[in-house]
Each structure stands twice: as C-alpha cells, then as structure tokens.
C-alpha cells in the first residue's frame, strides 16, 4: 500500500482557525441583534447600527479600510485554500522507509566540509535539488575546494541525490 509522503501542515490549516473565529464573531453580532430586538438586553442592536451606515452616500474612512482589509484577507483565504501542503522531507532509496529533511542534509554537508583540511568554516544551503556549500578556506589552501566536493559527495552518497556547488573564500592573513 502506498503511504502518503510526510508533509508540512498546509497554510490553510492555520487560516481556518482565523476563519472559524470570524464566524463566531458574526454569530455574536446576529445573536446580539436577536437579544436586542426581543428585549432580552437593553442595548441597541449592532446590526441595525451597521445597516444605518449603508444609507451614507460614501463610506467613511473606517468602513473603507475595513472593506479593503476584508478583500485582502478574502484573497489570502482563497489562495491558501488551493495551496498544496509542501513535502517536509526527501525520500531515501533503500529497503527502509527513510526520509531526510533538507536541513539535516545541510548539517551533514557542512560538517563534512568543515572536516576537510584547510577549511576554517563551512555553511550549506539547500534549494530544491541544489546544495550550495559556502566555505572559508585557510590562506594558501585553494586546492581544498576539490576535497570539499569529494568529502560532501561521499558523506551524502546514498541519501540525497543533489547537485553540489562549492563557493569558497580565502581568509585574510
């Protein structure tokens, strides 16, 4: 049976909480109107106050600001509703059902690069299938670039099929 890939939580899941709270707010306005009209509370209806505003020839600054905010929020909701959940880990070939996060691959690559002779510091960044290793080399160790490529490739062999790019900078004496 095919299992679903591990995925991040979709954006819509967070926005849905906001949408549910908005619904509760609307329900509160409707309930207050009913309570006010039936005389259960002495306060004036909020809904009537809002409807009275509709007779204005032009909306006030507050209504306009609220309207534009509502339109932007609605657009965000609509886009998020169709955004798929992103995959959180990369699959690894083998008999085990193993998945590795891109951050873990970066950490392994940085460690492999830092252990190469002549490298003072290394940091990695993964974008899609491209791993960029930025290394700070000790003076007169330009040849370490090839060693970094080899070390990172050997360390990641078997878990991540990525294109490795090394960007090296020589430290000042």
């Amino acid at each position, binding site marked *: 049976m095919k*299992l679903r890939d591990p995925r991040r939580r979709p954006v819509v899941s967070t926005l849905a909480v906001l*949408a549910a709270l908005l619904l509760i707010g609307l329900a*509160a306005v409707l309930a207050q109107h009913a309570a006010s009209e039936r005389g259960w509370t002495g306060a004036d209806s909020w809904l009537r106050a809002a409807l009275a505003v509709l007779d204005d020839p032009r909306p006030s600054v507050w209504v306009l600001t609220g309207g534009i905010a509502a339109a932007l929020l*609605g657009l965000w909701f609509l886009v998020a509703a169709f955004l798929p959940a992103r995959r959180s*880990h990369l699959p690894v070939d083998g008999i085990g059902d193993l998945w590795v996060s891109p951050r873990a691959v970066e950490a392994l690559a940085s460690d492999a690069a830092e252990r190469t002779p002549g490298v003072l510091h290394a940091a990695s960044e993964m974008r899609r299938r491209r791993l960029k290793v930025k290394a700070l080399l000790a003076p007169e160790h330009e040849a370490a670039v090839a060693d970094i490529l080899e070390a990172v490739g050997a360390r990641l062999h078997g878990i991540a099929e990525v294109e490795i790019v090394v960007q090296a900078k020589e430290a000042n004496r």
Partner: protein
Amino acid sequence: MTTPKADRPATAVIGLLLLAAGAAVVDWRWDLAGMWTRLDTGEVDAAVDAGWFPWVALAAAVALSAFALWWLLARLPRRADGRVALASSGSDRIDLDARSIVPRLRDDLERSAPVDRVTSRRSELRGGQLVQLRANVDPRADAASLVNAAGSLTEAVRTAFPDGEITVRVLVDEPRRERARRTPRVH
C-alpha cells in the same frame, strides 16, 4: 494537530464572501460598477424590521457558532486506538497493543542510528498502524549508517508482522541546536 477535511472548502467560501464584501465597499467608494447606486436599502430595512428576522438571526447564530466550534475542535489531535488484530487461527484471536512496541522501536533506532531524541507518533492505516519515528541527526553521521539502521528496523518489523499490521517510517531532522547538546563537541 490534524487538518480537518472542511478546511479547504470552508476557507474558500469564507474567502469568497470576504472578497465580495470588500469589493462592494470599494464599489461604494469609487462607483466602479455602479452596483451601490442601484442598491435599495429600503428592502433590507423592511426584512430586518419583520417579526421573523430576530428568530432567523438567532437560529443562524446558533448554527454558525456550532459549525465554528466543531471546526475548531476537529483539529485537536485524537489518540489512535493501539489495538491491532494479528492473524488468527480457528477460534483463537490475538490482539496486539501497538503502544507496547513503540518504545522498543524508539530505543532500537536511537541505538543503531547516529541520531538522538527519537520521538514517535502512531496513526491508523488501513488494516494496521503506522509508527512514525522522528529523530535529530548527529551532524557527524554518514549516509550509510542512517540507511542501514532504517533498513534493519524496517526489516525487523516486517519479519515480526509479515501481514503489515505494523509499518514503521523514519524521519530524520536537522541536529538539535548546539546549546541543547548534552556532551560538548570536540574537534
């Protein structure tokens, strides 16, 4: 947290309504489509003044808040039942509680793979349970040891449960922050 199935359709509908309300206000201000000038507020006021309106508003308030509360509560995590029926012979039947083997799987992974802080999550899968182990990698780890550890764990589970009652999946995350490391790193 789980993601309820209602999230996408309900958020899309609410998004459309918000967008329509916002567009109406913009049209009111700049008179782009002339919609607002044709709006007769008299009919709206007549409906609100009608005797039935407060009851309809009350019913709508109850229905909306019930849906919103269900929607909020549906995302709270639920504990999956741990029982798994093993293959039975004749009238005998054996149920296994998957919860009993999860700590063992966590220990096995922590011992055999260069990882630490293994956590687990169980979820129901058609006819069985999926045990998802999640761990932080040791930055000194090499790929082969991770692959071998996950492979031997899967193999052991597959041997113990040949009919796939329990399936194991391993997720490897970035190392924990240096500050949280228990032993100092020595270069």
